[in-house]
Every structure is written in C-alpha cells, then in structure tokens.
C-alpha cells in the first residue's frame, strides 16, 4: 500500500481542479483512500490523513468519519498527533454528539502531562468546546492549574475557567480561592486573562461583585503603571502600552464602580488620566476611550459635536449609532441645539430611521422641553415632516400631551388646523388634528390665539372634517377620529343640523366602525339631546390616569378615541344616572339599563368604583355583543395583570356556545381561566365573565388579539378584533 499523499500535495492537486465536479471527484477519491487507511488502523499516517480530512472539511465536504480518528490521535503519545488530533476535535466534534465525551479522559490525562505544551493543548480544547459534562468532570483540574506558578499555563487556565463558569455557573464558587493572588502577577498574559475571569464572575454574581470591590485599588495601580511606565517594546501598540489589558481593566472598573461611591472615587483620578493621555488619532486610542466613556458619562458630552456630525455620515450603521447616541446625550442643557440637529436629521434621513427618530424626538421633547410652546412646535414639526412614519401609539400620547398644556390649546389647534389645510395625507397628523379640532373647536373660531387669524366660518372647519371623511387618503381609523370630532363640535358650534345630517349619513356606512359610531351619536341626538351639552366630551386620560375626583364627574370621560366609543356609550348611560342625581333627578325618560359588571349599583359612587383602581378599556361592540375589560394587579407578582372580561348581549336572542380566545405578542404570556358559562343571555340579562392572567415581565404595552365564536339564532358567528388601547396602568 503506497504511502498516502502528503497534505500539501493534496492541497495543490485539489487547487488544480477547474470545475466543481472535478474537485468533487478528487475529494471522493481521496476520501476513499483515507477511509481504507483508517480501517487498517495505521498509526503512522493517521495524522497526515486527518489533516487532509480537515482541509476537505473546510472546503465543505463531510468529514464525520474522521471523528474517532481524532480521538485516537489525541490519545497518542506523539506531540504531532496530539496537535492535529485536538485541532480535529475542535473542528469536527461538537457537544451535541456523545462521541465528544470520549475525549474527557484524554484531556484529563493531558492536563496533567509533563510537557506544558500538551497541557496547553488540553486547556485550549476544553476552553473552546468543552460541554457542560466535560466541564463538570474537569473543573477540578482546571482549578489546580489556575494556582500554578507557570504563567504559560495559568493564563490558559484562567480562560478555561471562564468557559467552565459559562457552561456550569454553579461551579463558579470553586474558583474563588484561586483568584486570590491572580492580580499580583507580573505577566501580562496572566493579568489579562485574570481580569477577564474576574469580570465574568462579577457580572454573574452580585456577591462576587461585592467581594471583588476590594481589588479596585490594585486594578487602579496596574492601570497607572501601564500609562506611566515608559516604552515597553513587548506590549506597545502605536505608543500605547498593552491596550488590550487597559481596555479590560477599564471594563472591570466600570462594573465594580457602578453604584458604589467609594470605588468610583478611587477610580476618578485614573480615569481622567487615561482620558487625557490617550491619543485618539489611532484606533487603539479610541478602543481605550470607548469603555472609559461607558464609565464616565460626562466625558461623552465632550464628544457630542463629533457624534452629531456622524448623523450626516454616508454609512448607514454609523448614522444609526449616531442617532441613538444623540438621543442618549440629550439633556436639559443641550436640548435646543440637539433638537435642531435631530429635526434636521429627521427631515433628510432614510425612511428606515424616521419612525425611531420621531419616537426619540417625542420622548426627548417630553423630558426636557424648555417651554410648552417649544414642545408643541416640535411636535408639529415632526408631524408635518415625518407624519406618516410616526408610530400609531404616538397618537394617543400626543393627544394626552396636548391636553395637559392647557394654555397652549388655542395655539395648538390653530397650527394643527393650518397643517391640515396643507396636507391630509399623513395619518397620525390628521388624527391628532381631528381630535384637537373636535376638542377645541371653539377656540379655533373664537380667535383667542392672537398670533393666528381666527377662522371666520365654522362651516369651513366642518368642511375640512367632512373632507377627511370622504378622502381616499384617510384610513378607517382616521375616519373614526373625524366623525367623532364632528360630533363633538355639535356642542361647540351652532351648526347642529349640518352635523346631524353628516352623522345620519354615516349611519349606513359600509365601514362597521363608522356605522357603529354614527348610530350611537345619532341616538345621542335623539334620546339624549338634553345631555349632549352636559356630557362635555373630554379626553380620556383625565379620568383614567387617576383623576377620580368628584369634579371630573361633571365632565364625564367620554372616550372619543378609536375602539372605545361603544364603551363610551355605556358610560354615557351610567353617567346619565349619576347626572340625573346631580341635576336634581329630572324625569327625562327611559334610561337603558346596562348590566354593571361587578359592583352593586349605588348612587354617585358607582362610577368611581368602576374606575377605582381599575381602568376600563373596551372594544367596539359587534352586533350587539359587548366586551368590557376590568383590571387588577396581582399580588405578589407585579408583573402579572389580572384582566376580567365581561361579555354582554343587547340583542333579543341568546348567544350560545360562546368561546372567548385571546392572543398576545411574544413577550407576554397569557393564561385563560374557565369562563363563568358559555351562554350570553339576551337583552343584557346576564353576562359571562372570564379571567385572563397576563405575565408582562418586560413591561411592554399590552396588545391583544381576540376571537369570539358563538352561535346566534342557529348560525355560527365569528368575530376578530385587536385591542391595543389598554390604559397604561393595566400593564405598567
């Protein structure tokens, strides 16, 4: 049997192949030869064959038949064999295959070998690919080597320990004693790997963190030596002495110094020194500055102008980083300047950034706005320049903001109205504007804002809103806003007839949502006309965010937003009872009885109780089916919200086989408990309750998709809806 060809010979041969097919043929031929050689258990050429196999593996060909051969090489006494054997193990074996466990014994022996290079091979392999089982078995050996005086082995043992801890965190404790004098080493390799090990331990365990805090002075000293000592050719990189070690120490210092004043004090001097001494014209200098800046936020401000310049860079990833950093840097002092830059960026950036940038601007403006006027102007700017990219959930937030700035209402509504006249294509802008016009329409026409001319004709305003209703550019959501706004103006403008006409037209709209609203508003005109004024439509949040005072009762929160209008209607009816009391018990005709979910009826207090700690959210009632949500916070786990749904039925027939299903986004977990029954009796004679438990560890905005199926008058009915206006208290 001729000797198998050498590795380099094979490589050369394969590289002469002109086509993929030719290459494959050569590989297959060689693999066959190697396979028979393995079968013959040839010790002499095993190493060469495995090396060739590794080359072919890199080209993408299967090499699993070489796995056992690697193990045999590792077990060999020859260093060459071990070298290739361990390399092969790292390339071909992985912890998913049981085969790798066969290595454990070999590695154990090699960890105790007389030659440090063999020990090194074993440590390297274990530290790169050791499975949890292997780590458990060999941790003791690693710990032993961590205490050796041989710096070549000690540094490897330290990183091996890091891997062991990552794989089997419970073993972390056993390495603690060995860390005692790691930092007193002079050898940079050991120092570097020790710092890595200490960092890993501190990141994983607050106890370790506290324990290692006492090392801060030592770390500071080492860092100082690195900076102050003269040129060291061995460790120099562009004039900086061992930047790798410096960076690592800085990272550890940051972790140790977090929320600990004493440690931070001890570090301040050296951090300032590093900052001033480090030249940033080379990458390596910046590499050191990077963790430094993570530690000391003030230093970052110095670089603000550079960061802002990067907003104009051509590279997309740089722009994104610059944008994120800019938002992080915004504070009360630089808000005006920064916002100018960011708004300019918003104007000119790629569409993929606009949504995030807009959200960022809103957040920053909310936190640091120097004045209400500036705040409103900023919002306006965003809505007009990037209005279509603004996130859906920004709309209610913005509305809340505007509501809170009472003195700015006139100014705001004027500006929004003007913006609408220009452009009705950007839906978030249109929605916010519609809402404001509905709410503050009286201010719009009264000319209270001196800066803008008063809108003379109320009809003009109604023209605009009606225009939104019919425009192709308006989404169904926007139409809902417009219709509600028009309705609200019936209490502010005198053109009631016109409004009545509009509302009744939409009573037969194809859009179910619009139809629903129109029908309900119509009813308001007919049955509750006298109350239309009393029930001045106010924004949601004043009630739901905790304003539960009596004074709010007069301006009962009729939620004019999307999805809540039918609950609104139910509210109306409830409020009607209340108001009747307040108004002195007028006899005003029949009040529709609605099923109150949980609380007994009691004068005045019921509205408060219903709101109480519970915020109500709801959804459009579908064909007479109403779903109401009530909320509780679960004790002891504050991440769990307990939501109870109450299903009631205003139609004349029962809804049987009623099934409620819900789905939530991935970051939540949902648990549906059994419903009280599966029949929703007709005419509100009773309701079904069902408890939903939602786990929300990330405290994200709760959204839910619900599916309702039931049988009605013999026919199966299915309804789908999305609820995404849960009030913040229910999930925060």
């Amino acid at each position, binding site marked *: 049997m001729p000797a198998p060809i050498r590795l380099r010979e094979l490589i050369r041969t394969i590289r002469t192949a002109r086509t993929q097919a030719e290459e494959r043929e050569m590989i297959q031929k060689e693999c066959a030869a190697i396979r028979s050689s393995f079968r013959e258990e040839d010790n002499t050429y095993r190493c060469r064959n495995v090396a060739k196999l590794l080359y072919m593996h890199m080209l993408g060909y299967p090499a699993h038949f070489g796995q056992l051969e690697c193990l045999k090489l590792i077990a060999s006494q020859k260093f*060459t064999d071990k*070298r290739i054997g361990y390399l092969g193990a790292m390339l071909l074996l992985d912890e998913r295959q049981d085969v790798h466990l066969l290595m454990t014994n070999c590695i154990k022996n090699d960890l105790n070998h007389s030659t440090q290079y063999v020990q090194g091979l074993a440590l390297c392999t274990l530290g790169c690919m050791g499975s949890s089982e292997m780590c458990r078995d060999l941790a003791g050996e690693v710990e032993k080597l961590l205490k050796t005086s041989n710096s070549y082995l000690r540094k490897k043992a330290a990183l091996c320990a890091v891997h062991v801890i990552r794989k089997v965190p419970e073993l972390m404790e056993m390495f603690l004693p060995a860390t005692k004098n790691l930092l007193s080493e002079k050898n940079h*390799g050991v120092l570097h790997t020790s710092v890595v090990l200490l960092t890993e331990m501190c990141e994983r365990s607050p106890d370790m963190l506290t324990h290692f805090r006492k090392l801060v002075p030592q770390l500071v000293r080492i860092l100082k030596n690195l900076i102050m000592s003269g040129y060291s050719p061995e460790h120099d990189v562009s004039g900086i002495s061992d930047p790798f070690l410096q960076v690592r120490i800085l990272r550890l210092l940051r972790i140790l110094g977090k929320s600990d004043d004493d440690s931070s004090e001890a570090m301040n001097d050296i951090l300032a020194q590093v900052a001033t001494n480090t030249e940033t014209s080379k990458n390596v200098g910046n590499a050191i500055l990077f963790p430094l800046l993570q530690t000391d936020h003030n230093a970052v401000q110095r670089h603000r102008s550079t960061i802002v310049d990067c907003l104009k860079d051509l590279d997309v990833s*740089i722009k994104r980083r610059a944008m994120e950093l800019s938002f992080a840097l915004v504070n009360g002092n630089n808000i005006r300047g920064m916002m100018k830059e960011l708004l300019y960026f918003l104007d000119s950036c790629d569409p993929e950034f606009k949504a995030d940038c807009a959200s960022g601007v809103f957040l920053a403006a909310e936190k640091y706005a120097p004045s209400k006027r500036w705040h409103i102007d900023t919002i306006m700017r965003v809505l007009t320049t990037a209005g279509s990219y603004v996130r859906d959930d920004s709309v209610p937030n913005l509305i809340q903001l505007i509501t809170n700035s009472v003195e700015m209402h006139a100014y705001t509504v004027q500006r929004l109205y003007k913006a609408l006249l220009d452009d009705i294509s950007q839906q978030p802008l249109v929605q916010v504007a519609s809402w404001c016009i509905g709410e503050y329409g009286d201010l719009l026409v009264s000319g209270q804002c001196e800066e803008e001319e008063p809108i003379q004709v109320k009809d003009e305003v109604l023209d605009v809103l009606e225009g939104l209703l019919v425009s192709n550019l308006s989404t169904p959501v926007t139409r809902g806003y417009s219709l509600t706004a028009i309705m609200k103006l019936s209490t502010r403008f005198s053109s009631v007839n016109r409004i009545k006409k509009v509302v009744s037209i939409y009573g037969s709209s194809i859009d179910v949502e619009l139809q629903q609203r129109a029908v309900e508003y119509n009813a308001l005109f007919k049955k509750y006309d006298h109350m239309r004024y009393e029930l001045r439509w106010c924004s949601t949040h004043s009630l739901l965010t905790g304003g539960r005072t009596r004074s709010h009762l007069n301006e009962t929160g009729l939620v004019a937003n999307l999805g809540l209008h039918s609950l609104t209607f139910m509210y109306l009816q409830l409020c009607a009872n209340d108001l009747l009391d307040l108004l002195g018990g007028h006899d005003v005709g029949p009040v529709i009885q609605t099923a109150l979910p949980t609380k007994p009826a009691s004068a005045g207090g019921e509205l408060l109780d219903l709101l109480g700690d519970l915020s109500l959210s709801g959804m459009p009632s579908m064909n007479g089916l109403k779903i109401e949500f009530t909320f509780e916070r679960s004790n002891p786990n504050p991440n769990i919200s307990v939501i109870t749904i109450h299903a009631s039925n205003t139609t004349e027939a029962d809804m049987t086989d009623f099934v409620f299903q819900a789905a939530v986004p991935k970051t939540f977990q949902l648990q549906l408990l059994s419903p009280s029954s599966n029949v929703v009796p007709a005419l509100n004679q009773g309701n079904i309750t069902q408890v939903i438990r939602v786990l929300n560890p990330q405290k994200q905005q709760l959204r839910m998709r619900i599916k309702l199926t039931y049988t009605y008058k013999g026919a199966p009915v299915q309804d789908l809806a999305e609820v995404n206006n849960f009030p913040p208290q229910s999930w925060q």
Partner: protein
Amino acid sequence: MQFMLLFSRQGKLRLQKWYVPLSDKEKKKITRELVQTVLARKPKMCSFLEWRDLKIVYKRYASLYFCCAIEDQDNELITLEIIHRYVELLDKYFGSVCELDIIFNFEKAYFILDEFLLGGEAQETSKKNVLKAIEQADLLQEVSHHEACIAPSGNAFLTQHSSFLIHEPTLNSHILITRNMCS
C-alpha cells in the same frame, strides 16, 4: 467573541474558528450569509455592522477578509486590534504572509490562533510570547517526529515553503499602510 472567519474575495473559506456550539448545518448557513453580507460592502464602509443579534467586526487585508462576531457588551475597537495582532503574528511567523501561506498551512494558522486566543478572548498580549510558544511547540513536533524514526520529513516544511512560485500581493505591505492610517 463568538466566531472568527477568514475568507477570500471570492467567498472561499480559509479558516473558521467557532467559540459557540452550533451544528454543522447552522455554521454553514451563518458562514454563507455573513460572507455574502460582508462581500457586498463597499470599500469606504464602516468596519462594524450589526447582523442578527451580533456585532460584526471585519477588515480586509489584501485578498483576505478577517471577520469576527462579537457580543453586544464587547468592544469593537479592540476587536479590530485583535484582528490586526493576529495578522501581525501570521506575518512574523510566515515572513510576509500572503493568502497562499494560509491555504497551504492552514493547520499552522490555527495553531497560532490558538496560542493567541482561547475561548474567544486574548490569552497573551505580548507578540513575542505568542511567537515563542509556537516556536517551541514546532520544535517539540519536529523532535517527536524524528524520535518516531519516520522518513525525514523534518525538512519537508522548509522545502515546501521555498517551492512557492506563485506570486500574490503580500499582506505585509498592507500591514504597514494600515498601521499608519489606523483610525
């Protein structure tokens, strides 16, 4: 560091070091996608990019791309330095290293990498010490080879090395240039 890949301008893999356990299939998929992504980047583009949930740090040296995947909390800038240090080590070892050296001596490239990094972290920050360790290990290999009384292949390495006639731009000149304009 989660992994390091070396590949040519044509997308051929020259070295792959994985520090996280993944199946062969997954490794192939990641390699394919990442190589495609990096090769598509223009010369003036930033050396850092975000890919899946990782940060990718890459740099081209002559005909070879050196590409590392690091985690969120790792320092990209020092990773660039690590890549550069590795290239310097290869250069010192092979003497004006070029892609062909790494093709024909891939196992040595691995040995050098394994003396410099362990488990994805730098184990030795002194260039001198890494090279010394490799030298000693090579010597040990030669000795053990001779002791086994096999046909003298001790010189094979040298003769093969000198038989390279194919010329490719060396990495060395590029190292000098990049060091000076390192930013």
